[in-house]
């Protein structure tokens, strides 16, 4: 992906009416810098890894296994995982399975409202290569053209144990400082946005949903 050139320009927000443009910010997203002292950054990563709060958004088939994941049998809350109703309070977005075009718009909207550092786990084969619906006119085939993915979980559908494994691996990656999906999104923002706009036809929201 091409890196967005480092400019200070603001976003166009062409999808909004002039009155609405006064209501929404047109600033570009900003990358977050790691802490200068490594010990503090490690501590921060440890804290982030052990309190992964996921956004309650069941986007597709695979999210039917999220309920067994969060309840007594598989119990993800012993790993610090909790389901949150609002993107403002969550740090992990689990893309459960296939993504239809209508849902993609809402996913983009919710993801951009989440505060960094934020991570995306993509479940199943549908976000990876279209999966079972590769020839459908309404589902996308490659999810990471539109949003950066930190971890893929293969399967159709992946078992809750696979999801637990994914959470553990995500925790290890975060502690190692390798999960930079949010920063990648900012660095290649123009390209991601162009891909999104190619697919989402009625863009009646700001270019970046703060």
């Amino acid at each position, binding site marked *: 992906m091409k890196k967005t050139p480092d400019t200070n320009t603001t976003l166009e927000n062409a999808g909004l009416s002039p009155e609405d443009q006064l209501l929404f910010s047109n600033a570009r997203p900003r990358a977050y810098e790691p802490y200068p002292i490594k010990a503090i950054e490690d501590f921060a990563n440890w804290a982030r890894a052990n309190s992964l709060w996921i956004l309650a958004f069941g986007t597709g088939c695979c999210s039917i296994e999220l309920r067994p994941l969060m309840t007594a049998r598989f119990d993800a809350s012993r790993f610090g995982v909790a389901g949150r109703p609002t993107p403002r309070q969550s740090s992990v977005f689990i893309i459960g399975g296939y993504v239809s075009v209508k849902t993609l718009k809402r996913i983009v909207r919710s993801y951009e409202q989440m505060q960094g550092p934020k991570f995306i786990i993509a479940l199943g084969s549908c976000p990876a290569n*279209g999966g079972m619906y590769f020839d459908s006119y*309404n589902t*996308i*085939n490659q999810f990471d053209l539109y949003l950066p993915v930190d971890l893929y979980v293969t399967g159709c559908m992946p078992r809750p144990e696979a999801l637990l494994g994914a959470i553990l691996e995500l925790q290890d990656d975060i502690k190692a400082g390798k999960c930079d999906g949010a920063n990648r999104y900012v660095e290649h923002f123009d390209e991601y946005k162009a891909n999104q706009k190619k697919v989402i*036809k009625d863009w009646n929201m700001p270019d970046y949903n703060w």
Partner: protein
Amino acid sequence: MSELLDRLVRDFGVTEITERSPAITTLKVSREHGECLIRELRDREGFTHLNFIACTDWIEDGIFRLIYMLHNYASRQNLGVHIDIERDNAEMTSIHTLWAQAWTYQRELREMYGINFPGSPRLEENFCLEGWDDMPPMRRDFDTVKYSTERFGHREGRVSLEPRDHMKVLLYPNRGGDES
């Protein structure tokens, strides 16, 4: 049931009565008499339940074949009413006044096939698709594989194999899949 069918032939000119299974019969009626027949079935013959309204695209014959599947709870009979309409400028009388659920089916048919139901409430509202700019997708001349490849792309490394040819290659590796 047979007296009912005789009466329908006499009064509405229904044709092509076929018994698909002991509980399901389909018949065909012309477009002009369609709504009247369905109303009669609902009001006087006890077919008070509308199972669904669907459409089959017989592109070779240039028609859309609508089916209104009705159910009679008392006699436990299903009756499928076929109505053929043209593919170009497809239009059919709306039955939204007969069942309060019918307008949803009509909304979906307008979106998926492009069939107009004049008078049906909220017909222009999108049902499943948002920002759709192509032809109605359920029509047979809409190529969904081509659309998906162009709009969404394909991840490299995906391979599809035809089972018969692939088995031949596996069984006869030295002859390159030639079984002769």
